[in-house]
């Protein structure tokens, strides 16, 4: 090889190297720019995903769209109606089985107006009359979360068992026109606490995404909630009809049957841990706290509590509950002559004590508990028959299960013990008859037992 050619080679090599490194440099710069660009985007997306996830919890989407043991949000939760059973839909971003093809506008319409992408109306089991209040920002965050952060699942929920003519969806349009507010009107209704951001936030969460009224507000014969906001009437959150055998209590200021004796701190503790000195979560509320409220910030929970505590009693005639020692003394002295007292001592007193004060927050009190004094005894009867679970929460990891006594107690015994509990220790609710227990037992048998058991 000649000297020249060697030189040329070296020059060529250096040139090539510089060229390459130049390109490399360019590429690097470009890449860095791209990264920072997408980095910002990613950060944005991440922020929206987080916010969307938080809202999904505040809205308790999982309550109706997730089944334990199946993919999250893959639907399939049954809703028993008088004329058949419908199943909640798959809302994962799967394009064929979920809502993956929804545009953000379609997504928003489904949530706030109850209209599917194909234009069909949704059953009002979906609480769109409440979600109508949700802001565009929140809908956007939810959309980003559900389209980019939720795992797509191809699971198909079971088909509805409702047959014609009830399977026709068009009559729902009439229902929607009559009872579902338009988003514009609904959003306006939340603007009533302009000078009090905490109350505004509380009202928004309770009346909007939280859709508390779906269970806790009574419904008309045509199934719409009798009030969608506190501004409409004092029926709002005044206690709902039975849902899956549970009767939701009033969240208003009634002394005996509402939250009259609960402090804001009690409400926050309940929504965080599912258990406070006044009582423990059960039934539908287990899930509401379990996949919903326990994840909310302290600030949001206090806003909710403040708003709830601002609602005056709907039933204004309740004498304040005062503890009465009569039954406790009688039981302590071995006097079990009162109807139901014997069963109470044998079956209930170990955990709830003869004085009805129990051992909160492990076992909830019966004395003064609004659930016990609810005019409708459904929840209490169902708990005695089927038992119930206080679920584990992030900050209260122990779960407690009350066993069901339905297998060992007659309707009369259940009626007696429930009546005893409703009338003891200062409680003053009406007695329950064996006929009523029989009816509730029959209804209860239709609902699925609470499984699986927790592992503690």
């Amino acid at each position: 090889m000649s000297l020249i050619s060697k030189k040329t080679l070296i020059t060529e090599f250096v040139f090539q190297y510089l060229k390459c490194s130049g390109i490399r440099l360019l590429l690097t710069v470009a890449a860095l720019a791209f990264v920072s660009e997408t980095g910002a985007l990613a950060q944005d997306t991440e922020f929206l995903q987080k916010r969307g996830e938080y809202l999904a919890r505040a809205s308790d989407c999982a309550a109706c769209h997730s089944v334990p043991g199946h993919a999250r949000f893959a639907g399939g939760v049954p809703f028993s109606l008088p004329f058949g059973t419908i199943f909640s839909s798959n809302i994962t971003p799967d394009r064929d089985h979920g809502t993956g093809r929804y545009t953000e506008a379609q997504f928003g319409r489904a949530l706030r107006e109850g209209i599917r992408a194909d234009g069909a109306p949704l059953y009002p089991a979906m609480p769109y009359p409440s979600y109508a209040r949700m802001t565009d920002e929140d809908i956007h965050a939810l959309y980003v979360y559900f389209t980019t952060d939720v795992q797509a699942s191809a699971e198909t929920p079971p088909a509805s068992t409702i047959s014609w003519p009830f399977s026709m969806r068009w009559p729902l349009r009439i229902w929607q026109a009559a009872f579902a507010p338009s988003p514009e009107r609904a959003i306006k209704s939340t603007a009533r606490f302009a000078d009090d951001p905490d109350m505004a936030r509380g009202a928004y969460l309770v009346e909007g995404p939280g859709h508390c009224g779906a269970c806790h507000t009574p419904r008309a014969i045509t199934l719409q909630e009798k009030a969608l906001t506190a501004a409409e009437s004092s029926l709002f959150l005044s206690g709902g009809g039975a849902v899956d055998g549970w009767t939701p209590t009033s969240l208003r200021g009634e002394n005996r049957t509402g939250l009259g004796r609960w402090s804001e701190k009690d409400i926050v503790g309940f929504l965080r841990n599912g258990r406070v000195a006044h009582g423990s979560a059960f039934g539908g509320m287990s899930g509401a706290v379990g996949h919903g409220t326990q994840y909310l910030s302290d600030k949001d929970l206090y806003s909710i509590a403040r708003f709830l505590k601002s609602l005056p009693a709907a039933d204004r005639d309740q004498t304040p509950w005062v503890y009465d020692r009569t039954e406790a003394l009688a039981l302590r002295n071995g006097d079990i002559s009162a109807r139901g007292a014997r069963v109470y001592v044998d079956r209930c007193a170990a955990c709830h004590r003869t004085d009805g004060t129990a051992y909160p927050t492990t076992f909830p009190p019966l004395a003064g508990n609004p659930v016990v004094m609810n005019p409708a005894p459904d929840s209490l009867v169902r708990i005695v028959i089927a038992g119930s679970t206080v679920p584990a929460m992030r900050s209260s990891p122990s779960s407690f299960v009350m066993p069901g006594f339905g297998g060992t107690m007659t309707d009369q015994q259940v009626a007696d013990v429930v009546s005893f509990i409703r009338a003891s220790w200062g409680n003053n609710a009406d007695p329950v008859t064996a006929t009523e227990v029989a009816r509730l037992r029959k209804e209860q048998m239709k609902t699925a037992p609470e499984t699986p058991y927790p592992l503690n």
Partner: protein
Amino acid sequence: MATITRRSVDVVIVGGGWAGSIMAKELTEAGQRVVMLERGGERSTAADGAYPGSLDELEGNYRFKIFQKLQKTTVTIRNNISQTALPYRQLAAFLPGEGVGGAGLHWSGVHLRIAPDDLTLRSTVISKYGKSFIPEGMNLQDYGVTYAELEPFFDKAEKVFGTSGEAYTVNGKVVGNGNVFAPDRSDHFPLPPLKDVTGAHLFRKAAAEAGYHPYAIPAANASRQYTNPYGAQMGPCNFCGYCSGYACYMYSKASPNVNILPVLRRNKLFEIRPNSTVLHVTLDSTKTRATGVTYLDEKGNEVIQSAELVILAAFQFNNVHLMLVSGIGKPYDPVAGTGVVGRNFVYQNISTTTAWLDPSVWTSQFIGTGGGGVAFDDFNSENFDHGPLGFIGGSPVWVNQAGVKAIAAAKAGGPPGTPRWGSAWKSGMIDTYKHAVRMDAHGSNMAYRDVFLDLDPTWKDAFGRPLLRMTFDWKDNDIRMNRYVVGKIAAVTKAMGARQTHLGMKEFGQPFDTRFYQTTHLGGGAVMGSDPATSALNRYLQCWDVSNVFVIGSNAFPQGTGYNPTGMVAALAYWSAHHIRTTYLKNPGPLVPA
């Protein structure tokens, strides 16, 4: 079935009882990925403790619902080296657990700290009575750890367990009516003592009159509702008596299931695999390092699980068995007196005394709580002068009325001399049930050169492994101790005004009989200590020979103490975990040079 290799983890723990759960909690706190393998299934208070159906003595104590099933594996037992051992086919003398929670689910709840002198028993005996005081053939040893070193871990365990009790001294100051012989504490018990049942109340009074020092037995049966430092909650005990052998429906008896696992299960670093039977620990070619374990999963697949650290936290004899079948440590040879794995196998020395009181006194023996009661320690450990007595060891004496259930009461019958059938039996049995007090001398058991564990040459388990063989019998030293302490109970029953007393004591020449329940407090076999020639584990419960294997349990006790073992096991687990966290993980290797 297939062989499966699972993704390697930081730590694999064998056994889902107290020791395993404590280690898992501690090591996940240190950021380690932990897999816990439990040979039995999941348990749930809601299912096992569904009231009132759960209060089923036949199912619980006679069909052994939550105990080990012996069909797949068991131990063989013989009294001495000249005999051929036979398999333990029916649960009776001792009752190992099975399933998540292990023995920590079926235990009764007695939760004691060890007597400090018991930790240094060999040194103490030599310094007080001279070396010649130790009988020929007794392997008396120190633990290699002191009470002062363990105190913070006893304290931690009591807070996790929600233990009820009354302190005598806290930080050197007398603070209450607790055990005057108990070592000093850094803090009070987290819960006040349980109430005395009538029998315990009378015993407390009578023991004091007799000049002894009664105290409330510390019990992990919560006297009130309680939230432990992990956030796990307990209910209060209502003295139903369904503790030992049962999942507590009041959630008031501490168990791994109630007190630790609810928190662990929420931790992404933790995974529990039930129905996983560990066959052996796998070692590398040097035999000085474990690479993980091999286990059978619930489908019968052989699974290879590699890990950086292996924690054996199975029941006492299962830990020893796993060491032997895995080739960890040198097996004990009783003839040559060499080797350590299987050495110092110990038990506990229990006998029950019954006093019948005036029929106007109702002791109602069906009432009870597993860990509660009243004890005195005047004849336990080195609390009394052994010099003129010529034996080593001692017993606490207590009324631990854990709830005598109907079948047990019927089997116990009436006072000695009562017929075993007919109306006289019936009235005697009822008399005992209503008006008698039962007192136990719950004593120590020393270790002997010819009492040991090894692999059985004949019998194999369902997995093809040789069964573990127990060679065990009672020795004169321990029988003399028992007879001496039981003799002291007479003064108590006299002060109680008993109309009749049966002093239950061990008889000389009566061999260990597997057909009758004694205790499940087996110990030793892989003991801790300072000398690799006489111990399998160093003072941190780390294997001398394979430094990434730690063995946690009562297998570490060189002698059987007069106390129930769980308190000590829990403290040792926290002690070991502390040193793994603070020293071992930073620089894996032997924590003590061999």
